[in-house]
């Protein structure tokens, strides 16, 4: 992992960071600063969100797209390092 190029860093670290921000980061923010989170008998979490759910969706989606782009770029541009085969 030490020989990553800038593009690879954007894909791996940027994608991972966006995925974590969308799930853990925004989730933590909702717990700390958002409205109360009552849970219904069906286990549904009912509350007004601090950050729009579509913003959260797009953040996670962008993270996954960056990670996929990293994987595909890696496949196209570099031969596999695994020489055991």
């Amino acid at each position, binding site marked *: 992992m030490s020989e990553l190029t800038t593009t690879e860093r954007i894909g791996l*670290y940027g994608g991972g960071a966006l995925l974590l921000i969308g799930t853990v980061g925004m*989730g933590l923010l909702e717990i700390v600063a958002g409205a109360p989170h009552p849970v219904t008998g069906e286990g549904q979490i009912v509350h007004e969100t601090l950050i729009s759910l579509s913003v959260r*969706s797009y953040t996670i989606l962008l993270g996954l797209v960056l990670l*996929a782009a990293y994987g595909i770029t890696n496949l196209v541009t570099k*031969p*596999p390092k695994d020489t055991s085969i």
Partner: protein
Amino acid sequence: MVTNIQTQLLGRDVSFPVEESRFAYWLVVMRLIVGWWFLHAGLDKFLAWPFDASWFVGGAAAQTSLGPIVTLFSDGILLSFTNIMVPLGQTLIGLGLIVGALTRLAAFFGAFLMTFFYFINGETGGWAHGVITGDLLGLLIFAMIATLGAGRVLGVDAYLAKMSVVRDHPRLRYFIG
């Protein structure tokens, strides 16, 4: 035996030991369970043929963040393509993981399909159970299998890896586990 994974992350040494037998065992367990999950989903659709995905790619997906792309597949030849490729893809992904054939390729397409299921199921349900759903965890397990590769552990990829076509074209190693 224990292998020391020597690597760096964010510029820091994060080397750690992994017990190999448990690692191999766990890779196979994950492959079999996730593989059966998809093989079952695919076979069920074939057994109840015809399969019609229009409610999902047309109705359900329309108001979601993936709507602009997915609704293109809601009628005509692209819907027919979807109606075949979803069950066929699920069946092949499941088979690939269970027998360990083209494992990384199967896991990549598993993660690809789960991306659609995750956002469309989640958004149409208003993320009522939170954004960490079974679909996201499924996606992450596919990503983990694609990253680690697991097909050579009691799998067909061990034989595919020895084929001359793979030796002559090293990039094919990316598709097998």
